[in-house]
């Protein structure tokens, strides 16, 4: 997914620039300023950040199910089908 990657990369490489352009630097400047829905630019940044979090969460959620492995019912099912065929 080339355009998404490049989007993530540019995000990765520009946090300091973005922090610099923060219209209202606040006490939260010590965090990377990605979460604050202020100006239009801020919103763009927010949406990029959300995009990345969505990607991470989606994969994490998916992996979570993958990690449950093969429930017995499916191993049993395939074994049964196999046996049937061989008889």
């Amino acid at each position, binding site marked *: 997914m080339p355009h998404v990657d490049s989007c993530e990369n540019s995000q990765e490489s520009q946090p300091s620039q973005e922090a610099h352009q923060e219209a209202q630097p606040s006490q939260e400047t010590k*965090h990377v300023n990605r979460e604050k829905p202020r100006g239009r630019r801020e919103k763009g940044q927010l*949406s990029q950040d959300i995009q990345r979090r969505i990607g991470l969460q*989606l994969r994490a959620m*998916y992996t979570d199910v993958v990690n449950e492995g093969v429930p017995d019912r*499916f191993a049993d099912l*395939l074994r049964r089908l196999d046996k049937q065929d061989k008889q």
Partner: protein
Amino acid sequence: MTAPDDVRGAMLAAVPNLRAFAVSLCGDVDRANDLVQETLLRAWSHLESFEPGTNMSAWLFTILRNHFRTEYRKRRREVEDVDGGYAERLTSPEAQTGHIEFGELRKALLQLPPDQREALILVGASGFSYEEAAQICDCAVGTIKSRVNRARAKLAEILTIENVKEQEQESDTDKDVVTSRVA
């Protein structure tokens, strides 16, 4: 027809991913398991249509996807369990992911049209290329790309609203967790 052992092995190996795909698609573990079971049964009875040497996983995904779409159409008139099972039944991941719950994402996913949802999951989670996803969904590569983009935009919209609401309510500690996870 007799399936060679390696076919059974390949099918078995695909089960964890098939389940993850099914759960992400339908938002319900029990229904997902039924989808996977039906997929394996169909695949087994149509093994002659599997071309040896091609991607078993992609073939099974195609069967599952088609079956889901058929089911989905049938179910449309029924009351859909949109916010139901899925989000509530699978709460354990929270422990592994700190403050970010999957529940929100799951609910948001279910708000997407199925064609966008499946495209996003295949490309964004299952790890298929756009080309493979296009094959599985029987459409053009460009169509998959635009579905994925629309899905991302829509999810961002839904989750941004959630996110802003949350931030208005919660303390900075929350943001620390979120930021450190993202960084």
